[in-house]
């Protein structure tokens, strides 16, 4: 008898834990800022393997034999809605080439600004600071920063690494339209620093300067955001495609961004052959 009660109690507790809390999910109404907008302020981070590969993938060895298991690729179900990325056939061939040459081609290795949407699912926290006119999204990685224009809707004045973003609210959802991305450094730098395309992850998935991203971000609970990005680049894909994932609040007390000024960790690699001594 006592055992049955305990089991029932345990079952009930489990049920409560597993069920969404009342009001959470797509029907959740976010707390408001003082000016009445859904409050996205805080520190957010992805908890998945999109950083390694947006598509579903098995575990795999890392790029440097000596780093063994520590830098091997963790497996993941993928974040691309409805299957693989719709590459044009020639672009898929290029993706495989870039993936094989990732040590040179991946901007992350050179500490280059990661762009959009890549910044949002790297394994570094993103701080959102929200005002009426601007929403700042700031990654710990490389001091990367996005400035979302909420009061104006203008064309990019110039191409940039993080793009030009205009945002607006559709009810509970922040919709951000971003264009004006650099697609490469070709012609701009020494070959040692050059990259031909912009990687979206470590697996060689890539875009060019034809990139156009539309993101939809909304609160689905006190500590969760729903993050969706529709990615369009006629140079590379046959049609727009979408990634979808939750972002989780970093709930530890007094959370703050550190500095990951990674240029410091990579410049000896990039400039190495022109240097004399280590300088340290």
């Amino acid at each position: 008898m006592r055992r049955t009660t305990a089991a029932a109690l345990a079952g009930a507790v489990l049920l409560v834990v597993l069920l969404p809390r009342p009001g959470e999910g797509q029907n959740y109404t976010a707390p408001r800022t003082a000016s009445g907008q859904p409050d996205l302020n805080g520190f957010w981070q992805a908890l998945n393997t999109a950083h390694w590969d947006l598509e579903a993938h098995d575990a795999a060895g890392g790029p440097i034999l000596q780093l063994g298991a520590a830098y091997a690729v963790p497996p993941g179900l993928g974040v691309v809605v409805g299957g693989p990325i719709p590459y044009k056939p020639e672009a898929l061939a290029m993706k495989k080439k870039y993936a094989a040459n990732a040590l040179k081609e991946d901007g992350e290795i050179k500490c280059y600004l990661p762009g959009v949407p890549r910044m949002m699912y790297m394994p570094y926290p993103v701080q959102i600071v929200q005002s009426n006119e601007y929403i700042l999204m700031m990654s710990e990685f490389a001091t990367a920063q996005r400035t979302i224009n909420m009061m104006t809707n203008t064309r990019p004045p110039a191409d940039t690494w993080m793009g030009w973003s205009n945002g607006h609210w559709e009810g509970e959802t922040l919709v951000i339209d971003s264009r004006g991305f650099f697609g490469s450094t070709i012609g701009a730098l020494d070959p040692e620093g050059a990259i031909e395309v912009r990687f979206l992850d470590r697996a060689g998935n890539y875009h060019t300067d034809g990139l156009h991203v539309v993101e939809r971000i909304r609160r689905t609970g006190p500590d969760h955001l729903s993050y969706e990005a529709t990615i369009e680049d006629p140079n590379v894909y046959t049609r727009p495609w979408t990634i979808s994932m939750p972002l989780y609040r970093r709930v530890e007390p007094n959370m703050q961004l550190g500095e990951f000024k990674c240029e410091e960790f990579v410049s000896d690699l990039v400039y190495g052959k022109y240097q004399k001594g280590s300088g340290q």
Partner: protein
Amino acid sequence: MRYRLVLMAAGLVLSSLSLAAQERPAAQGASYRAPRTPDGVPDLQGFWTNLTYTPFERPRELASKPFYTEQEAVDFFNRSIAGSQDQIVHYVNGDFGATPVQTGARPNRRTSLVIDPADGRIPPLTPEAQKLQQALLAADKARGPLAQTWRDDRGTVWCVFHDRAVPAIVAPYGSNYHIVQSKDWIVMTYEWNSERRLIALDGRPHAPASFRTYAGDARGHWEGDTLVVETTNFTPKRIFLGQPGTPPAVSASPALTLVERFTRTADDTLVHTYTVTDAATWTRPWTVELPMHRIGGPMLEYACNENNQDGFAQLKNARLEEAGKLAPLEQMRRGDAKAAIAEHEEKGAATVIGVDGKDESK
């Protein structure tokens, strides 16, 4: 091209500017009430510049004269503009500000940005700090004139952190800020190297002493209409000063504390004062007052590392020069700006634009 070279005739336009628009010292702006954010605190948001012709330290001959008269201030300002014409080309100021006058500098009655000590000059170093500074200078000298690694030119090539960002040392150009406020944070993004300062307003303590950063750990609170920011936890990798117009670079102790005050004294003016205290480095604290003037946005990303052609050029050329395959660079030509403008216009090689960035050649 985005980085087309143009010639500027900005100073001629501004020489008639009167002191009426000049910032007032904070105390005199007491009747002004700053607009409020939706959270009810003073609104410091927007785009600001602290570019100025006022020297960081006071010239010794003005040791006992902290303020110019209004006429002297205008004369000094106009002389400075004339002096800044002594160069051939600038970048278009729609991309980034090339000289103070192009991005909204105004006459300042102060004769130096350092306002304490009373002589307007940075106080002497302690004996220990002098030794550290001598070591820095000796290491610099030992490297010789040619760059050896990417670490050698901390002024413009070094993209890790721009030392002018914190505490604010006015740069020759690009000393522009974008301020955004939420309830619990104020973010100040500095144009050069896109350095950002994240200032927590929620009353939290400073990060642990072992958590060290280039920009420091900033905590802010409101004292009336003034934002007070205390910044600590600077990394020992930081150097301080060492910019043109300031005393030579010095490393500081882990105890260095920066206390800043930001007060909006007019719709278009934010007065920024800061005090640096580090008893192990300077024999007494020192204070700087920087007027910040409202400018138009947007402010684009700097992307220093991504576009660092200087880094490659300096190092490659240094190795070539060592190998005798490259002659030392010719001195850059400087001289009469008006003659240079005329010469470039004749060749169709330049566009003259006005102070507001409009292309006046069309």
